[in-house]
């Protein structure tokens, strides 16, 4: 645009100058400045675009304002120019651009109020497509050198279009920089470079070099620093650069490994934190070749650390690294980096777990746990490798398991629970938890650990399994959980710290109330996994599906082992729901558990409340144990059942067995049940007359029921009682021995045996009958009966039985040839004893 060539009606330049003067005046007063400047900008822009004058001429015309002594005036001048450039940059020639750049760069050295417009102008200039070579670099250089920090940042992101040249320029300009303000900005720019997808190209390594030479940051701010830059800011800024792209991985990882070797704590910490940050962006191919080195370094830090910060940074780094490896998609060619890495870890850490006296147990466990918590696949691999030896170790240890071990074990379990499970794993876990629960030290911490973490997890697992409702594997899983969780729940609840002043918020009360609200109201809020439907009816059976109702076992475990002083919430509602369930539900496990649960609660219920209930054996037992007056009515009912044709043999007789035997699940002392002393003896002595009478009065076919009941009762009596009571019942027992029922034979024989050690007189009188019976039993089809009979005969040899010797020896010849070795062994012993009877050198 050569102004000379244009026809001019008036001297445009003069006009320009006039306008510029006006502008100058306007600049001096700040009134209405912004409106005026827009007007001027339009004027000048249209002028340039129309070719009436060039920008350079404009610059000249503005000379007076641009060289004014007032900074503000100069600023406005530059601002006007920059605004014009904003509109007209496309129309500039290369020569013009060159001049303008030089001008602007020069203006950078000016007063700080001038700087923003200058930068704006520079920004517009960079949009020019015909920038001379090297101008970007010189621009940057002057930007870096001459401008205050904060101002720079907002303008520098515009240089993107320059690509690799810019990167090169940037690298060059940054080299050797020392001022923290500049560095901060440089890091930020570099970060932007990386993040906004600049093509780093062949300058990747240079960019890395120039930034990484500052790592790790070693900076102490001078006192009274007006700029207030902290070390932490620099660290974070540099870290953002170094971790910004996977392209740096091959340089960064060796650098980190090297720096981890340093003695300076802050360097180590920085390296670990940077490592954790960088691998979150990387894939396995970036880290694969460095795995061994990284692991060695991290392990060293955790094993030998004296600082907790470094240890936790190391663990975090390990977790991040493991996550990174787990994330990778594996092609068929690539090596399984995750398992390689975990192999390193397991090789170094696993054996330490089994040496509980060395101090490396804890660090090893922490490392394993850190790796475990990274992902599902990692936790599966590690848990599968570690669990068996851990469990074996716990089994073999004679001493009590410390609380600390519970935590260690718990970590692995949490990993399992969080990341899903297979049947075998959960089975294994439950068993081990049970063992731990049995042996753990009785501390508050352990109790809390169990109640707040493990139990909700297990409950939700069981619920999940039940809700899935498939038969087969789920059934196995559920029933296993229920069977063992029951006992483990009971164990741990009874183990839990007993407070003398029972606090209503103690862990076991909390679990109980949570369980009650879960079962009665379907309240699932305390369970960790929130994907359960609300308001589930767990105490009702729905049609044929009993998968949910089975869970009443868990309720039993939660509420039935509380000390008597604890009040079970909503107990009446619970009792009636349980009663209904036990009477109406058709699934054996469900109704039995409901009955047991009911019984457990009833046993502890304070005196005086109405306890009308169905006469099932469990409830009777509950009442028997505490000797509730209502018990006698129930007992009479049971006795009357003995006469019943259908229920007599099975239910009634077994019922008596249940009454007398030790209950392993609910109604025992470990669950704080109300068990009065000598309840069995009391029961027996109060009821034996009735029993004998009933037997004598019963018709022949009902007699076996009475015998069965009798033998079940007597069998469970303490030995001393048996001995004293036996004479009264001897005829009954002899009768029992001659009946057809093998079970009765067995129970009667086992009662008899201890008595034969010190026989009462009445037995001596009945010897012949006894011998006859015993010899007859030698032909019993049941092996155990034959063996029991033989041992009784053996014991009899100490009595005055000489008259029977010949007969017995003859009779004992047959069992010598018995088809079972165990029987033969017993027969040999018995016969040898009898041979010695009355023989010289014998007895």
């Amino acid at each position, binding site marked *: 645009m050569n102004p000379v060539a244009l026809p001019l009606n008036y001297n445009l330049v003069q006009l320009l100058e006039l306008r510029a003067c006006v502008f100058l005046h306007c600049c001096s007063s700040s009134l209405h400045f912004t409106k005026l400047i827009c007007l001027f900008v339009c004027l000048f822009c249209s002028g340039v675009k129309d070719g009436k004058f060039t920008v350079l001429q404009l610059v000249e015309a503005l000379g007076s304002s641009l060289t004014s002594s007032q900074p503000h005036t100069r600023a406005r001048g530059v601002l006007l120019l920059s605004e014009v450039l904003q509109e007209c940059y496309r129309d500039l020639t290369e020569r013009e651009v060159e001049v303008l750049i030089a001008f602007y760069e020069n203006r950078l050295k000016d007063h700080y109020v001038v700087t923003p417009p200058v930068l704006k102008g520079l920004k517009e200039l960079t949009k020019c497509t015909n920038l001379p070579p090297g101008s970007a670099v010189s621009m940057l250089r002057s930007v870096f050198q001459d401008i205050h920090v904060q101002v720079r940042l907002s303008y520098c992101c515009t240089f993107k279009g320059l690509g690799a040249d810019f990167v090169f320029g940037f690298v060059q300009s940054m080299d050797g920089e020392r001022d923290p303000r500049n560095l901060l900005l440089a890091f930020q720019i570099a970060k932007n470079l990386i993040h906004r997808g600049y093509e780093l190209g062949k300058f990747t390594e240079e960019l890395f070099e120039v930034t990484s030479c500052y790592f790790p940051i070693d900076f102490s701010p001078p006192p009274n620093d007006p700029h207030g830059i902290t070390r932490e800011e620099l660290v974070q800024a540099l870290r953002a650069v170094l971790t910004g792209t996977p392209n740096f991985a091959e340089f960064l990882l060796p650098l980190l490994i090297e720096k981890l070797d340093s003695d300076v704590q802050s360097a180590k910490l920085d390296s670990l934190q940077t490592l954790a940050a960088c691998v979150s962006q990387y894939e396995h191919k970036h880290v694969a070749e460095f795995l061994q080195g990284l692991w060695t370094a991290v392990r060293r830090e955790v094993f030998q650390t004296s600082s907790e910060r470094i240890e936790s940074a190391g663990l975090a780094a390990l977790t991040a690294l493991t996550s990174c490896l787990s994330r990778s998609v594996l092609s068929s060619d690539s090596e399984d980096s995750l398992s390689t890495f975990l192999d390193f870890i397991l090789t170094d850490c696993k054996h330490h777990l089994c040496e509980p006296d060395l101090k490396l147990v804890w660090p090893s466990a922490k490392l394993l746990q850190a790796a475990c918590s990274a992902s599902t696949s990692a936790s599966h691999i590690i848990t599968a490798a570690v669990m068996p030896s851990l469990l074996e170790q716990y089994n073999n240890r004679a001493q009590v398991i410390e609380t600390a071990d519970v935590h260690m074990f718990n970590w692995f379990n949490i990993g399992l629970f969080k990341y899903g499970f297979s049947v075998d794993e959960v089975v294994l876990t439950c068993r081990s938890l049970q063992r731990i629960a049995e042996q753990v030290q009785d501390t508050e911490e352990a109790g809390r650990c169990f109640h707040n973490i493990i139990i909700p997890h297990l409950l939700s697992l069981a619920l999940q399994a039940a809700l899935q409702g498939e038969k087969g594997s789920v059934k196995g899983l559920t029933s296993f959980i229920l069977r063992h969780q029951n006992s483990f729940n009971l164990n741990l609840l009874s183990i839990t710290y007993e407070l003398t002043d029972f606090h209503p918020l103690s862990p076991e009360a909390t679990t109980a109330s949570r369980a009650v609200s879960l079962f009665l109201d379907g309240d699932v809020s305390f369970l960790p996994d929130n994907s359960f439907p609300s308001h589930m009816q767990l105490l009702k059976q729905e049609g044929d599906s009993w998968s949910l109702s089975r869970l009443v076992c868990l309720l039993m475990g939660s509420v039935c082992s509380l000390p008597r002083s604890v009040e079970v919430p909503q107990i009446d509602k619970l009792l009636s729901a349980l009663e209904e369930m036990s009477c109406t539900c058709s699934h054996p496990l469900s109704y039995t558990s409901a009955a047991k649960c009911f019984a457990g609660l009833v046993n502890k219920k304070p005196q005086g409340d109405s306890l009308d209930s169905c006469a099932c054996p469990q409830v009777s037992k509950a009442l028997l144990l505490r000797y509730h007056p209502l018990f006698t009515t129930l007992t009479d009912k049971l006795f009357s059942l003995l006469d019943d044709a259908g229920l007599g043999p099975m239910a009634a007789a077994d019922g008596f067995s249940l009454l007398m035997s030790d209950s392993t699940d609910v109604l025992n002392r470990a669950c704080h049940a109300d068990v009065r002393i000598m309840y069995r003896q009391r029961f027996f002595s109060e009821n034996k007359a009735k029993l004998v009478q009933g037997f004598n009065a019963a018709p022949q076919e009902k007699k076996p029921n009475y015998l069965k009941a009798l033998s079940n009762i007597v069998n469970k009596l303490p030995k001393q009682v048996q001995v004293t009571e036996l004479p009264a019942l001897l005829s009954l027992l002899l009768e029992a021995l001659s009946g057809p029922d093998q079970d009765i034979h067995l129970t009667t024989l086992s009662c008899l045996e201890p008595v034969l050690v010190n026989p009462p007189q009445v037995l001596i009188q009945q010897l012949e009958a006894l011998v006859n019976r015993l010899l007859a039993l030698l032909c019993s089809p049941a092996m155990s009966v034959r063996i029991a009979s033989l041992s009784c005969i053996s014991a009899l040899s100490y009595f005055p039985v000489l008259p029977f010797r010949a007969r017995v020896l003859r009779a004992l*010849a047959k069992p*010598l040839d018995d088809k079972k*070795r165990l029987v*033969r062994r017993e027969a040999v012993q018995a016969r*040898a004893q009898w041979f010695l009877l009355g023989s*010289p050198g014998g007895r």
Partner: protein
Amino acid sequence: MSEGTRLENANPVIFQRSGDRVQTASEEDEDVHDPIDDREIFDLIRSINDPEHPLSLEELNVVEQVRVKVNDAESTVGIEFTPTIPHCSMATLIGLSIKVKLLRSLPDRFKIDVCITPGTHASEEAVNKQLADKERVAAALENASLLEVVNQCLSTRSI
């Protein structure tokens, strides 16, 4: 019987007792027939006491399991026992104890053959002949003092 308190073999070598037989699942199964085997016979005789020492025949290595041969199907059992010294005068007594124990412990159908391990005793032929003769054995057991000694050998000591 030796005169006085002088023992013939004052310092015998003692062997270790083998542990109890391990019970297998099939032994507890009602329907499975357990045949009589060598170990079972050995268990019968190994705890027999030695007349002189407070030790069992097993501990003195007088009886060994390898020298027990039983055949349940053919109802035969053969025992070779090894006296501790070649001129042991207790040999006959020991042999008799073994024989009596087996007579008392095995079904009638069994033919019991007890003899001295060949080459271990000076008068093994004579002893074997005596032990094989049923009438001589029966006559020996009529002798009260002999029976007493045999019974003492056969009494089980508490371990």
